[in-house]
């Protein structure tokens, strides 16, 4: 299926439309809002569901030699992407080192909701994917933070701050990693039988819950745009749209030889192209407090996420159709 058809189809999916509704409502200053406690829980639910399903899939299909290679590629990209992003931002924009490092950390890491949305697009095309990609997603969350910190400190204008150890513990044990990995392992341990037990909770209503969460993300993204737009100078804005494409290209090359399924390749590329907006921002507030959240949150949630959701995912699927098997 061509990119245009995919994009056209994608743009009228309930998921994208509910995101758009949230965006519009927030930009129009409607008082529509999802309570914080519920937003947090929807995120937990999505991670529980996607993690468990991935694990159960692995239990069914077993481990493939390929898994190691794909994981390695993912981790490597998570380390590498911030280096490229940082270099660009320092050269093209006048962002201080801390801001440039913090921003690029988000792009090396991943957005689990972008991943989840991509799994739905993949499924929508009747394609399957390798369940272990959920684990790869979890493993790609943190490396980017490390290289960003390294870059920031090397730059000199960033004080050493807290010990790396404490930070690593905080990041490594952050809710999303624990939830994703934990559910993956439980899904793996209990397998299809376990999946069957809770399928009516984690599979049947999944898409609908995703719509509600995307409505919420649209509301938050719209608010962020209203607040943060003025902080985004053109070169930074360009980064928010261009970096996903660069990462996607790298990811495509990286997995070409690995013979992932088309669906799996699309998801892997999506991971590389997506930008974190839950785990990394919190980590940056601790590790690089002088970096301005108004910049990295607005860019990741207000620019890159909508771009990936609306156009990126279909594009990555089209790319995957070339390199996947």
């Amino acid at each position, binding site marked *: 299926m061509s990119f245009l058809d995919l994009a056209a189809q994608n743009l009228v999916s309930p998921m994208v439309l509910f995101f758009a509704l949230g965006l519009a409502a927030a930009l129009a200053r409607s008082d529509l*809002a*999802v*309570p*914080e406690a519920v*937003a*947090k829980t*929807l*995120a937990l639910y999505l991670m529980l569901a996607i993690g468990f399903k991935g694990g159960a899939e692995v239990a069914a299909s077993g481990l493939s030699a390929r898994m190691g290679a794909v994981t390695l590629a993912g981790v490597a990209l998570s380390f590498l992407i911030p280096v490229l992003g940082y270099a660009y931002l320092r050269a093209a924009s006048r962002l201080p080192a801390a801001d440039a490092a913090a921003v690029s950390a988000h792009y090396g890491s991943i957005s689990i909701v972008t991943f989840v949305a991509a799994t739905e697009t993949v499924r929508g095309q009747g394609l399957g994917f390798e369940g272990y990609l959920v684990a790869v997603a979890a493993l790609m969350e943190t490396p980017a933070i490390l290289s960003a910190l390294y870059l920031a400190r090397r730059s000199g204008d960033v004080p050493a*701050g*807290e010990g790396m150890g404490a930070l690593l513990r*905080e990041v490594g044990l952050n809710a999303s990693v624990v939830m994703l990995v934990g559910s993956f392992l439980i899904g793996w341990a209990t397998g299809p039988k376990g999946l069957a037990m809770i399928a009516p909770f984690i599979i049947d209503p999944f898409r609908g819950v995703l719509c509600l*969460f995307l409505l*919420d*993300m649209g*509301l*938050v993204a719209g*608010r962020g745009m209203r*607040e*943060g737009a003025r902080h985004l100078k053109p070169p930074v804005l360009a980064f928010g749209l261009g970096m996903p494409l660069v990462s996607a290209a790298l990811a495509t090359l990286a997995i070409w030889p690995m013979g992932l399924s088309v669906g799996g390749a699309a998801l892997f590329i999506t991971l590389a192209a997506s930008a974190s*907006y*839950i*785990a990394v*921002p*919190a*980590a*940056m*507030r*601790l590790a690089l*407090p*002088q970096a*301005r*959240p*108004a910049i990295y*949150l607005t860019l990741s949630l207000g620019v890159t996420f909508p771009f990936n959701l609306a156009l990126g995912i279909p594009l990555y699927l089209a790319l995957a159709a070339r390199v996947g098997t």
Partner: protein
Amino acid sequence: MVQTHLKKRVEIVLEAPALRRLIDRLDAAAVTGYTVVPVLAGRGHEGSWRGEGLAGDAGRMVMVVCITDPAKVDAVLETAYAVVSRQIGIVTVSDVQVIRAEHF
């Protein structure tokens, strides 16, 4: 009339990701206790924010109230300030009266 004693009320508004760090420091600073109050929204030098809809901690604030003895207030302030000055947040202090002096 009820006999009361002078204490200090330190009120800290701090971004949520740094809360644990602050609390660990307060524990170290041997305060007798503290109370964490949720915050819905706010505005400051770093701009305005709202907690609604946020799935993560970044961009949210919490309020920490700490009743302490005047003799300890400087230590508490320095502890709090050591964290808050690096993060998004504010610190205020006021006088309060308590009944059980020994409790704080």
